[in-house]
């Protein structure tokens, strides 16, 4: 990312970068923190911690470059190193398996769970949010970055420190899991299984 060349900024310039390039992303950052921790207080702590780190390492940031991706990367690393270690076991997902499946002939076989647009449009409560929150955190993360925040694959690869191929396979798996969850909700709402 933009950390290779160290910059030299005066105090005034540091504050300008912080106020004009970092703070405008506070909403997205808080939302990312909340969707990772699923706790508002933890999200606030995580965002504060991230911004303080960003300020401390501001000379690693090149003015005018992709501040949002840089901040998201710091937040993600803080989450893994400080928060997740304390509270969660390591991930049990076999990502090699996810990738092998994505690149196999079978990827089209179960093309989508039994889900229809009309059922989705009827989900006016917290169904979508709950379905997202129910995913394992690494799967949740790729959906947040891609679908909520609109990051491109190459940006996601840098934020997450994984190859673009892995971004794609993980995203595919994440979406299928999300659809499975949404299908369950659709059935509870009375929509019958309708295979495509």
């Amino acid at each position, binding site marked *: 990312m933009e950390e290779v060349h160290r910059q030299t900024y005066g105090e005034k310039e540091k504050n300008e970068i912080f106020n004009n390039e970092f703070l405008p992303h506070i909403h997205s950052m*808080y939302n990312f923190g909340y969707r990772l921790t699923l706790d508002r207080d933890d999200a606030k702590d995580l965002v504060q911690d991230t911004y303080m780190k960003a300020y401390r390492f501001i000379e690693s940031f090149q003015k005018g470059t992709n501040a949002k991706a840089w901040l998201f990367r710091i937040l993600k690393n803080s989450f893994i190193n400080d928060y997740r270690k304390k509270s969660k076991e390591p991930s049990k997902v076999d990502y090699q398996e996810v990738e092998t499946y994505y690149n196999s002939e079978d990827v089209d076989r179960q093309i989508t769970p039994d889900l229809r*647009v009309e059922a989705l449009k009827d989900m006016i409560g917290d169904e*979508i949010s709950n379905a997202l929150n129910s995913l394992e955190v690494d799967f949740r993360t790729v959906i*947040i970055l891609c679908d*909520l925040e609109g990051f491109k694959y190459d940006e996601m690869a840098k934020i997450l420190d994984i190859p673009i191929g892995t971004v794609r396979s993980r995203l595919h798996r994440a979406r299928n899991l999300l659809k499975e969850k949404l299908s369950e909700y659709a059935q509870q709402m009375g929509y019958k299984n309708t295979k495509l």
Partner: protein
Amino acid sequence: MSQQSNPFLQPDGKKSSCMQMLQLILDGEANPEQKEYFKYHMDKCMPCFKTYEVDMTIKEMLRIKCRGDEVPNDLVEQLKDQIKQKIAS
């Protein structure tokens, strides 16, 4: 459009699956040639057409429903105070 002009062919010459094509389209990662090919492909691939509709709807709903969390009022002020303290120390 002929098989040879499939712009989704991978470097090893392997065809991309429907799901792999669909994902690039959905995420705005496809180039204009790939978009054109996919439009044509969807006309004759009903599962792709339906999945595209469902996936687009989910993507849209995620953006609408999962980004609305209000940032705590005092967060920005607290951050600015912490920076001031850091500079002063």
